[in-house]
């Protein structure tokens, strides 16, 4: 039972990460995230700098909301957007983890190269001795 729960957890985590990466694949959406990382903002404020209709920006915002990276709440008549940093942490976690992983693997690769070089040298010595 626990294993099934764990697998479900992993699957939904994967789906969430995929949604985050798909959302980040677009430059407009990355610019929106960058803007919101400075402070929360109204939808109209977010839309202002972009050379596209409010409607087009709203669609990008909806993709970001669906990915869980951006949250919306209402203040009177205004819709306020803010970042849910939990999702960004999850993405960062992946890159940090992978960077460490590859660093360690490349260390191991270099250790093996040194070993192989040593073996090669001693084999050559053995051959020389044998030929004498």
């Amino acid at each position: 039972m626990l294993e099934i729960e764990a697998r479900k957890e992993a699957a939904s985590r994967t789906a969430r990460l995929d949604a985050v990466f798909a959302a980040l694949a677009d430059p407009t959406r990355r610019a929106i995230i960058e803007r919101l990382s400075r402070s929360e903002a109204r939808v109209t404020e977010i839309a202002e700098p972009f050379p596209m209709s409010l409607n087009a920006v709203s669609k990008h915002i909806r993709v970001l909301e669906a990915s869980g990276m951006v949250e919306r709440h209402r203040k009177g008549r205004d819709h306020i957007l803010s970042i849910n940093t939990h999702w960004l942490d999850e993405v960062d976690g992946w890159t940090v983890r992978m960077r460490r992983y590859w660093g360690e693997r490349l260390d191991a690769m270099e250790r093996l190269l040194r070993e192989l070089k040593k073996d090669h040298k001693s084999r050559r010595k053995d051959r020389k001795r044998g030929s004498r």
Partner: protein
Amino acid sequence: MDRGDTTGPIVQVRRRVKASAEQIFDLWTKPELMVRWMSPFPGAVDCKASCDLRPGGAFSLAMSSGESRREVSGTYVQIDRPHKLVFTWIGPLTNNVNTLVTVELTPRGDETDLVLTHERLPTPAIVEGHTRGWGHILDHLAEAVSQDSSL
């Protein structure tokens, strides 16, 4: 290499390695050498590797150490010995989703510059080509397209 506008987060690691590009390329592609450094487990490890070194060919690494077991696998995308190796990579560490690894080797005298790029799919790198026979990647692309078509 600036692909910041076209992909999600990328992990890139650079190393200058004291070996020839050919020697390094073989470490990545010969099963008897792969098992000697690719396992992340410390100490005694039973590691089995198999690879079918051609574009579209599969590789797998099965590692076990005591109670722990881990399996990673993938599909070769581009094989250009000794300059470039591109393969998909899936395992527990990638949350069992497909990722793409590119290893680029540039000779610098007696040494070699190694640049490893690890990126999550879907990415435009896949769209650029090499898509034949890739069930997983096409699934991811389909997902990405269906998500984007909601725009």
